[in-house]
């Protein structure tokens, strides 16, 4: 009898294990007001399928193939609006609240005077990284990226200059955007 109860408990828990961070349902209604929406939900099986179609001969696709080889899921919700105020803090709080657990650590939090806020969270899995969440909240854009699985943010950054990702010019920190940024000591953390 005990083993049956254990199996039931595991079966009940499994859906939660599938994706420990859930994209809030209330985000879907933002699509109604958005001029552009990106909605990507790729679980393990879809990632494997996608990976099979990535070319080993294309250097960019080969890098992505390597990046995603151990991932469990990739989830993106991105909304662009034509005016400010089309989403609320509570929309973002619905995902932030899931990240206030011992497993997740906020490693970067940047606020700009123009209202462009960016946060990066990493999930600890023993000695390894088990996931990444990026939240970019701007006046006319909200983007949430969740990568579930062992991901190296450096590898992702190395795609800069390829695939439409701007190249990070480390000699000129002011080059892109041009907006004034401030962050509190509390928020900014060195890696």
């Amino acid at each position, binding site marked *: 009898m005990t083993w049956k109860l254990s199996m039931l408990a595991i079966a009940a828990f499994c859906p939660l294990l599938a994706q420990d961070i859930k994209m809030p349902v209330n985000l879907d209604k933002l699509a109604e007001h958005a*001029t*552009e929406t990106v909605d990507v939900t790729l679980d393990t099986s879809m990632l494997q399928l996608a990976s099979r179609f990535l070319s080993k*001969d*294309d250097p*960019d*696709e080969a890098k992505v193939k390597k990046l995603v080889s151990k991932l469990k899921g990739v989830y993106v919700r991105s909304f662009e609006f*034509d005016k400010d105020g089309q989403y609320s803090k509570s929309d973002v709080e619905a995902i932030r609240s899931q990240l206030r657990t011992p497993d997740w650590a906020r490693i970067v939090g940047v606020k700009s005077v123009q209202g462009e806020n960016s946060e990066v969270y990493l999930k600890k899995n023993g000695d390894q990284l088990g996931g990444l969440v990026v939240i970019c909240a701007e006046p006319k854009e909200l983007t949430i990226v969740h990568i579930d699985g062992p991901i190296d943010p450096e590898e992702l950054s190395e795609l800069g*200059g*390829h*695939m*439409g990702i*701007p*190249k990070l010019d480390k000699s000129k920190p002011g080059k892109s955007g041009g907006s004034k940024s401030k962050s509190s000591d509390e928020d900014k953390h060195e890696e």
Partner: protein
Amino acid sequence: MVALTTSASAQCETSLPVFCDALEANKAMVYSIAWHFLRDRAAAEEIAQDVFLELHRSWRSMQSAQHIMFWLRKVASRRCIDVVRRRKAHRETGLEEIAEPTALERVQDTLLSSYLERMVGSLPEKQRILVVLRYQEGMEPEEIARILDMNVNTVKTQLSRALDLLRAKTAHRLHPEWSEST
């Protein structure tokens, strides 16, 4: 029923006079969409040929000259976007990253038109096709939205952004004294 003129050009001595007429009437349009999008003559010609061959295969479903034009614009636009996405390089060069023209290109760009053409060719693919359909074909945003299966507001927003980008990049050409004075 295809309502086309039946006057065939001297080149079209075939058993397909009506298709031939459609080809003559629309070849510049299709080729130009591909050329302005890809800035590659060989690729533009290949795409244009493929589009017309597909038209030939789908000929039975054509209803009028207007339908043919709509169909050609739609298929040509989609083919161009597909080609760019499938290309091995994959790199999308933003306008900010476009290198300054070489001396030879500066000579060739003596007309603002050539320079503008080049700048259009470096827009992100979605904005690029919108600009080509709007300013080459003179289409209204509503028509463009139907062709590309996009929301009309998105078309307008993206067009507006594309124009802002192009204006910013061509400002020094329109007002050279601005760059000389800095």
